[in-house]
């Protein structure tokens, strides 16, 4: 009876939910009862196991559907309203609509706040003292000792690192765009996808709700490292989808390279960086295939569209051996680069990324 009583309290004891006196009783009993100690270890093993489950980030696609419903499903009072109030409300709504229209369509040149973090950053060649504003068309420049923080409209902020030159291209509610000529920025954006863009000489980073660092070198190449969420790195018809924990390089005239996870092997990362630069991609492809883990399906999936048909067979076989395509996605569809099939497979793979 006593043992059963303690067994009933073991979970609460391990969760720290028992009052001190009861907890002491349980402890005393555990010292003398092997059966209850075994029971405790079982529960503890379950608790240890559940802690291995990682938190999964909610996809960005959920919020837009909620936002779309927001206006329609807001509860409205069902009270009877006098016609004068209706008239007043109509006038007010007209005024508000006009204001909203003006706000949404106001000309380029909306200002963003900028704060000096360190040193002497400049905006449009004028030194920034304390805080100021930047408009579309103006450059923000930092030297080796200066840094600045830019508030990007109402969607987030961008930290401008030392030795950086970046221009505000568009500062509108439906498009926030920077051009990074050189140096490094760190963007933290909390907004629906495709509202924030950063152009570089070899590709455009399209925010899909995320936090990332972007470095642009003088030779036109750039390096994207995503910390949270997703970024699409695009150039002409090529795009690389880069999730949190992954990196992607771009090269002038070649666009975005193959993304890879930062915890991938050095061999794989080196090969992914070199892929597309050599005349025959055989060597780098062989290295990537031999060095890839389950998580590196990110790299393999991107390779499908970047290799020639004979090599696509090899990439398909390797990818399918690691993680078979979902039902309805066939080898033929993938080899033909059927967009819908590739996306379905990617969606299936993405939870492992």
């Amino acid at each position, binding site marked *: 009876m006593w043992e059963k009583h303690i067994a*009933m*309290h*073991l*979970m*609460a004891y391990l*969760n720290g*939910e028992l009052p001190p006196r009861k907890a002491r009783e349980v402890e005393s009993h555990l010292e003398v009862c092997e059966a209850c100690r075994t*029971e405790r270890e*079982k*529960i503890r*093993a*379950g*608790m240890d*196991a*559940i*802690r*291995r*489950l*990682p*938190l*999964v*980030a*909610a*996809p960005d*696609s*959920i*919020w837009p*559907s*909620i*936002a779309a*419903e*927001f206006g329609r*499903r*807001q*509860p409205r009072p069902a009270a009877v309203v006098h016609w004068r109030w209706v008239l007043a409300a109509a006038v007010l709504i007209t005024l508000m609509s006009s204001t909203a229209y003006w706000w949404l369509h106001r000309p380029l040149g909306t200002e963003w*706040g900028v*704060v000096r973090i360190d040193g002497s950053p400049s905006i449009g060649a004028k030194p920034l003292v304390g*805080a100021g504003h930047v408009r579309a068309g103006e450059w923000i420049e930092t030297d080796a000792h200066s840094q600045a*923080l830019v*508030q990007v409209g*109402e969607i*987030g*902020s961008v930290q401008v690192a030392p030795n950086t030159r970046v221009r505000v291209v568009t500062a509108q509610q439906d498009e926030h765009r920077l051009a990074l000529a050189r140096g490094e920025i760190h963007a933290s954006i*909390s907004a629906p996808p495709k509202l924030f863009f950063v152009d570089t000489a070899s590709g455009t980073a399209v925010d899909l709700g995320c936090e990332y660092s972007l470095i642009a070198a003088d030779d036109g190449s750039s390096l994207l490292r995503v910390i949270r969420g997703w970024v699409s790195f695009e150039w002409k018809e090529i795009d690389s989808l880069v999730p949190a924990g992954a990196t992607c390089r771009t090269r002038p005239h070649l666009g975005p390279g193959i993304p890879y996870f930062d915890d991938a092997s050095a061999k794989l990362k080196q090969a992914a960086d070199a892929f597309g630069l050599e005349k025959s991609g055989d060597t780098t492809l062989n290295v990537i295939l031999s060095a890839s*883990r*389950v*998580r590196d399906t990110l790299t393999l999936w991107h390779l499908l569209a970047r290799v020639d048909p004979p090599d696509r067979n090899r990439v398909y076989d390797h990818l399918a*051996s*690691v*993680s078979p395509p*979902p039902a309805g996605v066939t080898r033929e569809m993938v080899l033909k680069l059927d967009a819908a099939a590739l996306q379905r497979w990617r*969606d*299936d793979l*993405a*939870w*492992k990324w």
Partner: protein
Amino acid sequence: MAGTQAAAKGLKQNPSAAARPVTKWKKIFPYAVSMLVVRLTGRELSTQILESCRSGDRDAFRVLYEQYKDRVYSIAFYFFHGDPVSASDATQQVFLKLMTSIQQFRGEAEFSTWLYRLVVNVCVDAARSRKSEAVISDRLDAFSVPSSQEDDYQRAETARSVRMAVSPLPPKFRIAVLMRYFDDLSYEQMASALRCSMGTVASRLSRGHKMLAERLKRLKG
């Protein structure tokens, strides 16, 4: 208590943020600073946000959504055997229900308790209405890794094993275990969300964890 723990977690996740001079930037960066405050103080700010949500402020609702979405999604994700479509549907339903009923929330109970009651309702109702948990086998197959590579993928393999062990738990045990783990709710909060006694919460957690451990042992064996 859970609120304090969650706030403490927030500070652990972003220790440097606590030292930032918030007031200095407040005039220039009202939005960025408000986001920072949300991160720092966790649920304590929810009262202000809730007030704005009740008055139909979409931005406030977005903040609320951002604060809870990953935890709600994770619970749904593992509850529905790693099915991202079901998890997305459930998360969307939870926040849509929240949106339409938030005016009824008067603050008598803690907000998270109320939110998780919606999570429980949505998840358990969906599980009941689905003809089966036939999805389990399909989804779990997708978790599998070729055995020749197991040594190289230890971390993924461990998480996979735990997911496989969580999936067959009866729904009421599964939801209890996931809620406790992903939001560290107290027994009192869980009892309110699950509409049962604290003793029942303890019992479901205890049985759920033991079943999980036994299942894992079998998988490893």
